[in-house]
């Protein structure tokens, strides 16, 4: 199994398309960092909205590496699924299209092992994309903008997180984001089993993510109760929960706490359930599939 995983990782990281994700993320993160470096105040004013008229905003303090990382996560995590689907949707369909699938399946390796190796290789790729994003958006931003307390805008208030209480939250957030994006990877992987060309699974995955995201964002009471809690897209932004702190009786945030940890864990559980469902379905279907490509 370890040997198979190594083989699959070798193939993924020798494919030119794999590096599209890393290049695109680098470009997007650097563009945001440059924009904030030269015109960060305008952006802060924009996101604070009416709060800037009632509070004296210390722009120079707010615009630090942690804040920039939070902005980048908000902007980019919605778009990363496309980059994940690009590789995950190619895992089986790409092999079918190239004609290498028949050679793989005729080797003395069980189909379940082969699929598990492919899936775990996709998970490793997803984690590496997130690690790359974490490096650029957090480490590079800290290097360029320095560190200070993190200020997070909520609907009507500002959440202030002490600078020594931030780093573990980012680690948890990136960990959560890895699970969220692995759900997208698992969906693309499952769709890949049904296709003989990777375009179909990639486009289908993105279409499903878009439709589900729209449903998740719609404020319709009927959907709020019946559909939204079960859509994986409703839980993909659950990483934000790590940046909301519990408050004491006087409304002061308590350092080192998370406002609603059970909700974050429940969302993560739902995402893990989807991963098992998608990956399991892919294996079951592939085991019975006639390889005609």
């Amino acid at each position, binding site marked *: 199994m370890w*040997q*198979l995983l*190594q*083989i699959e990782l*070798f*193939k993924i990281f*020798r*494919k*030119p398309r794999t590096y599209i994700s890393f290049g695109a993320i680098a470009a997007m993160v650097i563009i945001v960092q440059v924009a904030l470096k030269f015109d960060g105040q305008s952006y802060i004013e924009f996101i604070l909205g009416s709060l800037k008229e009632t509070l004296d905003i210390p722009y120079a303090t707010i615009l630090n590496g942690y804040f920039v990382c939070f902005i980048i996560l908000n902007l980019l995590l919605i778009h990363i699924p496309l980059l994940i689907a690009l590789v995950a949707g190619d895992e089986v369909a790409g092999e079918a299209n*190239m*004609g*290498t699938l*028949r*050679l*793989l*399946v*005729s*080797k*003395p*390796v*069980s189909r379940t092992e082969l699929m598990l190796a492919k899936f775990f290789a996709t998970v490793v790729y997803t984690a590496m994309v997130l690690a790359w994003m974490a490096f650029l958006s957090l480490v590079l931003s800290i290097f360029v903008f320095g560190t200070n307390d993190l200020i997070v805008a909520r609907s009507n208030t500002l959440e202030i997180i002490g600078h020594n209480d931030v780093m573990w939250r980012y680690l948890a957030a990136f960990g959560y984001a890895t699970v969220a994006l692995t759900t997208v990877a698992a969906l693309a992987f499952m769709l890949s089993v049904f296709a003989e060309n990777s375009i179909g699974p990639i486009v289908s995955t993105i279409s499903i993510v878009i439709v589900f995201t729209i449903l998740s964002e719609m404020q319709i009471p009927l959907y709020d109760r019946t559909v939204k809690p079960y859509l994986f897209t409703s839980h993909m932004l659950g990483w934000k929960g790590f940046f909301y702190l519990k408050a004491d009786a006087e409304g002061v945030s308590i350092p080192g706490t998370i406002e609603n940890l059970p909700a974050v864990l429940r969302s993560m559980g739902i995402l893990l359930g989807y991963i098992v469902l998608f990956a399991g379905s892919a294996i079951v279907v592939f085991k*019975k599939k*006639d*390889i*005609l490509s």
Partner: protein
Amino acid sequence: MKQAVIYIHCLVMNVINVSHLSKQFRDINAVTDLSFSVQEADVYGFLGQNGAGKSTTIRMLLTLISPSEGEIELFGMNLRSHRKEILRQVGAVIERPDLYKYLSAYENLLLFAKMSGMRVRRKQLIDQLEMVGLADRADSKVRTYSQGMKQRLGIAIALIHDPSLVILDEPVNGLDPQGIADMRNLILHLSRHLKKTVLVSSHLLNEMEQIATRMLIIDKGKKIIEGSVNELFDPAKTIVEVGTADTTEAAEIISRSPWASHLKHVQAGHIVFELHKNQLSQLLKDLAIMNIAVTAFTPVNSLEKYFLSLTGTNQHVAAFAN
């Protein structure tokens, strides 16, 4: 004594044993009730036109497709229950030798050697590439290879784990005359010198005739004829197509006569016999004695023509003309 019995058993061991194999894709019968066996060190020719069911059968042998009915045994083991064990002893090139184009020949070979459970050194892989004449291009990306080079790399991959059984599906497709000759020599080398059993499919009868020891002809998923090439190509034997006004009645009469054993095939309009050349005049006389109105009496003297007589479409003519 016990050793002698085991030895005799080994001598006649079938490497492949296929019984009553069928595959249905929705309403299409790709393979119907196909049975055949391949003995150790045979070069077994699997012959039929495009779409005859050769590739479907080969894919079933390699577990790419599951049969609708029937059983497959390789090396005396059931393919379903001993899949891994069996596939460790099988090397195959299935239709086109499609490989990872973004990897080099060396990397492709390394990857598939590892998948076959091997621990290999670079020298071993380069030696393998040397065998197929690709050592000097070992580090070139496969996307820069010609069709013939890809085919040779496919062969190197099929043989890297030293399999006992080699399955080659249409190995000469897309090759130039030199490539075809090289492939023919390689197959003969595998069989004669390395004592490997080779199952090779083709739609080219003349190619099969040159390399195969035994042969199976398949059409529309059904077995037409199987036998040793010497037997099938015996120059003393001939095939006769006899045209009659009422084929059904004529066939019934013949089936009760001594000529029944020579009857090969009956279809609308004519009856096909296989017999020794010096029996031709006797057959003609006996048909007259049996009151069978003969409208045509056409001896055909090759397996190719016989095959055409059985399937009789222009497509075959085109295929065999190559």
